[in-house]
């Protein structure tokens, strides 16, 4: 591992809470390392596990998933669904040999700019400590979305009718 390794982390934020927490961290001029790059979703429930795999396959060393606190979801309860998927995803990732520190779920309300900045700082330090992911950048997940079932030879005609 090189001495000056700087991890790249993709952060998924919810439009209603954690994205606003990130805005608040900015407005309050809090500081956190520049290693994180944020993607805005409407809800943590929108987080398709593919997004996480895509980020890791595309060169990210870690993924931070954020959403509203349980019970505070803008869409009532979708963060619970995000939580379920997250737990399942963690097990899958473990089987792929991905260290648990690399994918993390954090709740942050719109008022918690400081908490989000803190969590980002912590996560960057943790991933920096375990080093680069070094996943081969392949087509594994690259073309998942492009796959058109109607063109697939594995899908029998009747199933599509």
């Amino acid at each position: 591992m090189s001495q000056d390794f700087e991890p790249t982390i993709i952060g998924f934020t919810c439009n209603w809470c954690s994205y606003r927490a990130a805005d608040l961290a900015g407005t309050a001029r809090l500081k956190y390392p520049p290693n994180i790059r944020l993607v805005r979703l409407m809800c943590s429930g929108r987080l398709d596990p593919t997004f996480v795999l895509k980020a890791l396959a595309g060169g990210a060393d870690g993924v931070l998933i954020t959403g509203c606190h349980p019970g505070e979801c803008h869409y009532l309860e979708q963060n619970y669904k995000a939580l379920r998927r997250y737990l399942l995803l963690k097990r899958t990732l473990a089987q792929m040999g991905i260290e648990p520190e690399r994918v993390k779920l954090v709740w942050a309300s719109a008022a918690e700019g400081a908490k989000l900045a803190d969590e980002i700082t912590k996560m960057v330090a943790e991933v920096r400590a375990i080093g680069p992911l070094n996943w081969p950048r392949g087509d594994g997940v690259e073309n998942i979305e492009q796959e058109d079932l109607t063109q697939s030879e594995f899908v029998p005609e009747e199933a599509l009718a």
Partner: protein
Amino acid sequence: MTNNPASNDKQERIGVYVCHCGSNIAGTVDVEDVANWAGKQLQDQGVVIARDNKFMCSSSGQELIENDIKELGLTRVVVAACSPHLHEQTFRTACNRAGMNPYLCELVSIREQVSWVHTDKFAATEKSKAVVSGGVRRVVHHQPLEQLHVPIHPSTLVVGGGISGIQAALELADAGYPVYLVEREPSIGGHMAQFDKTFPTLDCSACILTPKMVSVGSHPKITLLTWSEVTQVEGYVGNFTVTIRKKARYVDDEICTGCGICQEKCPKKVIDQIYEAGLGYRKAIYTPFPQAVPKYPVIDRQNCIYFQKGTCKACEKFCPTNAIDFTQEDELITVQVGNIILATGYDLFDARRVSQYGYGRLANVFSNLEFERLSNAAGPTNGNIVLRDGVTVPKTVGIVHCVGSRDRNFNNYCSVICCMQGLKFAHIVHERTGATVYNFYIDMRTAYKAYDEFYQRVLEEGTLFVRGKVAEISDAARLPGEEGKLIIQVEDTLVGKQRRIPVDMVILSSGLEPRSDSKELAKLFGISCSADGWLIEKHPKLDPVATMTESVFIAGCVQGPKDIPASVVQGSASAARVLGRIQQGEIAIEPIRASVDEGKCSGCRICNDLCPFNAILFHADRKVTEINPALCQGCGTCIAACPAGAISGSGFSDIQVLSQIDGLLLLDIDHSTLTQAV
């Protein structure tokens, strides 16, 4: 909308605009470098022009974009500036003016998420490039969208009949629109109805409140539902179906004249914990106070002898109009409303939690609400300020500020009203009893009109002020003169000495707390509350009465501690916001919605249970699922769940998000070459 992979090759013509925001961005990010880089390195992504500007949001900045759209034939625009929550609309509108669909414009944040949170200029510049690259990759896959227009129902639901809710209801009704005002207690009036005087003018609380209550009760446009609670909220922006549980009063309000004979004749006396703060009694059939609106009483089932033992019915026997109806049952009412205003107020901090102050244990330690009732001419002592024995007039009184507020053990926040309330109490005690009054404060906060003048007045009246947080209140006399007194142990921080001050009566200025059920309230109406439990406004300065949920507004103490004038202001403000919407007739909503490609849907029904808004319908005959765009709120949970990839979401499709991730990670791939190039 579909995830058409071919859209990659559509050869979109993209313009990139990087904002300096004065020095807000340019101070930490080399803005010109970002623009130059985007112009060269992202050419293969379709970027045909990349510019930087001092203020992109200025009219000249917007014109720059508009001219480029027209002259260079841009088909997509990426603006790298502040948060989309600030200026997304600005740039979308600019694009629209130039003839481009506004949803083909993407605003990426390099201010809140880059320049303001990072210090290293090189790293911040590199990150900005990544953010721009993410935006460019994403915008290629944007689809032209049309805003959805939904009609706004002209009725409004106001929840909470305190001063804030009353104000909101009257403003709306006076403007000619129907209002449903729901209050959980038997009468409207809220906390203000319990007070004797209001600071700083000392006008009688009931005198200024009751005319408004009467207006609410008699207003033809207001449907007043007291002794009622909202149980269910369905629907969406501008069109809510609200279910209200009207609890059984056991009194027929069509027949009852409010004469009060039933209350006189009822044999069961109950300690009134709510209105009289535990100091006085009411009957089992009661109106909380004589000026209650509506005037009809309710029977408290838990304490009614008939309901508990099966005999009595004294009220029924004496009622001159036969209005008592023991068979009444709770009723569920469904109403249609377009907007909702929540004004459910606050709970008082329970001073028992500060055990060293002895409230609940030492008889003559009173809470602020108890003192309000004690000093109220209509209260249990007819306004006589006396000790718990009911006769002794106190000679010395200590008023303790910040009980439960500004205290790490309880609530960190300032409860706003307690300083002025403490001063008001000092004045009242002084005026009515001539007692010596001590005020124990940490900081005296008397901001706002005529408040500090009131403080000066109380100072001049001879109230003694001790700056210091009270450590303990006890009845353990140690020194001569302390026997039979309450001893207040405090560090006088202005003198720098510990003091023991014997008093006859202590009044605790307990702070305000969110309603104990504020989290359930927030959940019911689909809005969020802070960790403390106060409901969160859309913007703390610029949008204090709106919430993140369209068509749901908040007013008064439900949003945070505030005094009566501020609560009234918020009541009016929320009504003004609602009126604006009603008068528009319809509202434009973001076209961020999920839709099902029926050709791909396998009918597995995995998505069916995921939608909390019941927007997902399953057609059993065709074995496919459909999403109702009017009910869909656009969260995208079903999209992420669909194993067939049959559901897609406008504005946040898989291809958009995946492409953005690609773009954000672009820089790492070429990092070595880039650093050399820089």
